[in-house]
Structures are given as structure tokens and as C-alpha cells.
């Protein structure tokens, strides 16, 4: 710690009238009348997610659990990419034939930069905003893995899809230490408000939706 901690704190306390503050924690009881839960049935919820992902120009493929490795292989083949990185915790069955896998056992930034794509799992999806949530667990990978490669294939299970953002927060038993929320590929509108895709992050997002909600 450096600088003027005491001076700043004193000024804050003086500003707030020097009352003994004991209100912290009370934030939980603030008024929250906004929509906490979705109202769509399972089918409509997934349809909404797919619609949103399409709006972001993401590719979506659906499959049942047993077909997952084959679907991953098909999506990789379609993308025309070969050199792929994978998080260290990616299920072995997902490391399908036909790609040149570089599993992340302390890969360097340069090695990751060389890869043409990355395949990861995900923590959950939010239909309302078309958001993919990563908590960077071993199967979701370190943050850099989903940042440098130009193509991101992300596996999402339908039982992990919620309708509203508050439902995602309700799912977090513990706040994540690291998280990335992805709502469409990297984009900018800084020049005359013209939306341009692919500034720095991956330019292509491909989602494999695993139908596992019965």
C-alpha cells in the first residue's frame, strides 16, 4: 500500500458526516423488482439463444451427447482449420482425429498465437443476450487460449442455458475468480458507427449445443 489511504478515508468519512457506517451488507435488501426468472419453455429458450447467436454471426450446430465428438470433428473440418489448441482439462474424447492438437501444458503466447483455433467447454449460456459465459476452469482454459486464436469452437450444454442474466448469477454458488462473458465476436463501431467485426479477439465463434436436457 502506498499513497494517502488515511487522508482519503478521512475525507470520505467527513463527507458522509462522520456517522458510524454499518450499512454495508444491506445492499442485499435493496429493491429488486426486475425480472429474475425467464418465462420461456425449454424449446423457446434454446430457440432464442440460437437466434441471438446467429445475430452475432456465430455458427451454431446442435447434437445429442453421443454425437458430440463427431459433431466437433465435423465443425473443425468445415472450418478448414488444422492447428488447434485445447485446454488441459478438455475431455479426451473431444480431441478428435483430423486436427493437429496442442494441449495447453504451459504453451507460450507465441505457440498459442500460431494456432488457427481453439476448442473449449463453457460455464453457461444466457439466451436473452446470446452470451457465452466462461469461468476459465480446466476445460474452459486459461484466458489467453480463447483470446489469441482466430476461431473459437465452444461446447455448451442445453441444461446450462438460462434465459436471463440474473439466472446466471443465481447459478454461481461462489463468485468466479476469473470470468469472461462473450456476446458476439470482437467488434467496433468507432468509425462512423459502422459495425466492423474482428478487431482483436477471435473473429469467428462456433457453438456446439449439446441437447442434454431431455
Amino acid at each position, binding site marked *: 500500500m502506498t499513497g494517502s489511504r488515511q487522508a482519503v478515508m478521512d475525507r470520505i468519512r467527513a463527507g458522509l458526516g462522520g456517522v458510524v457506517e454499518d450499512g454495508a451488507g444491506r445492499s442485499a435488501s435493496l429493491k429488486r423488482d426486475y425480472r429474475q426468472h425467464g418465462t420461456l419453455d425449454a424449446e423457446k429458450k434454446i430457440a432464442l439463444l440460437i437466434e441471438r447467436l446467429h445475430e452475432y454471426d456465430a455458427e451454431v450446430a446442435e447434437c445429442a451427447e453421443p454425437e458430440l465428438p463427431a459433431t466437433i470433428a465435423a465443425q473443425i473440418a468445415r472450418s478448414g482449420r488444422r492447428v488447434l489448441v485445447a485446454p488441459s482439462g478438455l475431455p479426451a474424447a473431444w480431441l478428435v482425429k483430423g486436427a493437429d492438437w496442442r494441449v495447453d501444458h504451459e504453451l507460450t503466447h507465441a505457440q498459442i498465437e500460431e494456432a488457427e483455433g481453439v476448442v473449449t467447454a463453457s460455464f453457461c449460456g*444466457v439466451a436473452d443476450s446470446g452470451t457465452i459465459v466462461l469461468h476459465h476452469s480446466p476445460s474452459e482454459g486459461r484466458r489467453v487460449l480463447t483470446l489469441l486464436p482466430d476461431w473459437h469452437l465452444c461446447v455448451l450444454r442445453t441444461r446450462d442455458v438460462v434465459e436471463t442474466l440474473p439466472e446466471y*448469477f443465481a447459478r*454461481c454458488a461462489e463468485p468466479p475468480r476469473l470470468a469472461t462473458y462473450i456476446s458476439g465476436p470482437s467488434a467496433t463501431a468507432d468509425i462512423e458507427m459502422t459495425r466492423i467485426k474482428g478487431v482483436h479477439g477471435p473473429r469467428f465463434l462456433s457453438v456446439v449445443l449439446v441437447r442434454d436436457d431431455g
Partner: protein
Amino acid sequence: MSAPAQHPILDPAAAPPFPAAALPVLRNAQLRKNVAHATDVIQGKRNRLVAEKTDWTELRESASAIRAHTLEHLGEYLAEFEERCTLAGGVVHWAADAGEAREIILRILQEEKADEVIKIKTMTSAEIQLNPFLRQNGVRAYETDLAEIILQLGEDEPSHVVVPALHVNRAQVREIFARTMNLPELSDDPQALTAAARTYLRKMFLTVPTAISGANYLIAETGGVAIVESEGNGRMCLTLPRTMITLAGIEKVIPRFRDLEVMLQVLARSATGERMNPYTSLWTGVTPGDGPQHFHVVLLDNGRSAMLRREMERQTLKCIRCGACMNTCPVYRQTGGHAYGSVYPGPIGAILTPQLQKLEHAQTLPYASSLCGACYDVCPVKINIPEVLIDLRAQVTEKERAEDRRFFDPIYVGMRVANWVFASAGRFRLAQRAARLGLRLFTRKDGWIHALPGVGGRWTMTRDLRGLPQQTFREWWAKERGR
């Protein structure tokens, strides 16, 4: 294209008064066109997405309540943030003012032996004028947000808190990039311009080991920091370097992780008219094996704590810098951001800057408004900007009166006289009669006054004044109803 304007001055202590700064802009047709286009587009998107949100009112209510509650307990939440962030491996610094923040950041960079640093867009760093300071001390700061690159390479200044280069059009961007990146063949297609920026930055991201960011939210509960962005330059800066420095105003804290479920929903819709911005990043201290292994947070006061005293002014600190108030403001939409002489333009700038300056500078800003209230309508955290503007106007007047600077100013004298006249019914009646007689001279046949001499001319310069009626209401009443 119009002649290039002079370099905008965003230091409130040195900037000209708002009316003087606005005048050249009002004559710059190109700039006004650029600003109008950008604000129209964002507003259109924002309005559509707010309209589709059935619980917008409730979200706004909660966002406002969370921010107000946080400020009421700011000390506690900052202490909690500091404790958690430190436990997670971060180092928290406290800066009483801009100078101290600059010194702290420079010292960290020197310890890292850094002579280069990459930056994620942060208005707070512009507030403390960090880049020129680092440069004087041998550290080159590279902006990485597309808009900020345009401004940095074009030696220009930001004019909006969300889209800082909205006053620059594609032809101007092409000119800047072609010249500074040595790409004479570059086209003015936004796609090509964006690609040029990507190439320009890629190597920098992979090689520069230190980064500076701002923060959208500091989470007291976890000690974590949240940043929202669109391009991915933020993710690059907060993932690849070895050392990361986050500069944040003390008001940026929110109580709990879950509060993001409100703040993120209102921010994206208000700022860019999206359901969610493309990337939101959240990190907590240092995580072994993932991202920077040295993490510093610099908490900046710089005039903020003085605004906590009165609820009226305190609400200014609820701001989440979404920019919606400027997009909708009829004044900003005509003048753009530079006229405000501060990194914080528009309605929020008009109340924030004078307060940060303790009313020693920027006294004209509270008047840079028609008080139409459009800013209050759109503000996602319900800051009653018009109310604060009026309060600040009163403070400016008080201050001027106290300093006797306005003693001979005709407006001040006029107000004093009016005060005296309005205080008595008899004097008021006499004054009405005198005014009717006096103004008759200037009233045309159509019943309007088109031009007045002296101070009155300041009014009739821009609008006509209705002539006084032959009879006042009181006279009419006395006649109709008798005594």
C-alpha cells in the same frame, strides 16, 4: 472539408469558457455532421433496446438504488474491496489527487523497468493527464482502443465518454492512419481501417509487458474488477502482460458480485444500444498461471470525496459513464464534446467537471444546458442532472457575488433591482406601469418586440419578446370584480 480546428483543450483550468469554446464548433459543419450522425445512430439503437426491455423501469430503479447505497457507505465498501483484493494478490494504492496518482503509476512502471505501456481506454487516465506525464518521464503509452488510437495518432482529444472519436469521419481516419502508419495505399473503408489498426497493435500486445486500464466496476465482496468492451483490446491488455495497473475513481465500487446482474444490463443498453457488450472481463487479484502476475489498483479521489457531503451533489458520483445523457442532449448534439473543456463532456460533464474543480474553473458549464431534462430521462442510474445544474448555477452566482466580481455587471444589478421591486406589491405595480410605457416604444404593430437596446438586446438577439398587454391581470380583476 472545413479547416482543421485548433487543438482542443481538455484541461478545465486552461480551457476557454463554454460559449467561447462552442462558437468555432458551431461554424464547423463537418464536425457537427459527424456528431449528429453518431449520436443519432446510438440513440436509435438505445431506444429500441430499452423499449424491448419490459423491466427497464425496475432495472433502472435498482441500478440507482445500488449506486446510491454504495456511495452512502463508500468508506466501508472501499475498505472491503481493499482487503479482498489484497488477499487475492493485488496491491491497492490510494491517490488523494491527480499528481499523486501519476507518481504512484510512474513508480510502479519504474520498478518494472518499463519504458512502454499499453492502455485500455480509460477516461480517468485522461482526467489525470497521465500520457503526457509518462512521456516526460521516458515512458511511452500506447492506446489500444480503436477510437483512442485515432485520437493519439491524430494528436486529437476525446469528445465522448463511450465513442471518444465520434467527431472524426472515415476520410479523416484514413488520412491519420495513412500518414502515421505509413500506408499511402490505405482505403477509407472502415473494414480496411480497422484491419490496419489490428496489425499495428498485434505485435505490441504480444511484446509490451505492462498495461494500464480503467475499471467499470470494483467489486467489494470479491476484490475483483470488471471491464466491459467491444474490441478485445481490453482482454489483450489484461491477459498478456506481466504487470497490470488499474486506475479507478473511488466511486467505481459496487457492493456485491450479483449487483452486476443489474449494472451490466443497464450499461450495455444505455452505452451502445446492445443487449450485452461483446466482451466483459472479470478478474480478482492475481491467478497463478493465468494473466498478469503483478496487479496494482490505484484508487483516485481527486475531488470526489468533497462531493459526498450533500445528497444533491453526491448523486453525480452514481454515474456509470454510459454516455446516454450526451447522446440525447440538444446542446451536446450541436457542440460535440471538446467545447466542454474536459474529458467529461455533455450533461454529466457539465455537473461533474465544475465539482471536481471545486468551482474554481469550469463555472460556465452549469449554464451549458437548456434544462430540458432529456438527460435525466435516459440516465440509467437516475441522476437528476437538471436539478444539480440549477444547484451549481446558484453556487456559481453565490461565489461570484461573494467575490464581488459581478457588482457592476448589468445582469447582477438588474437582479438586485428586481429583487427589491418584487418584494413589495406597490413597487411591483408601479414597475409594471413603467415597463408598459417604456416598452411601448419598442413594440411593433404585430405585438412583438424584435429588438431592444442595451442588455435587453442580448435577449432579442436570438428571440423575439412579446409586448406587454394593455392591462395586467390584477387591473382586470379589480375592474371586473370591483373592490
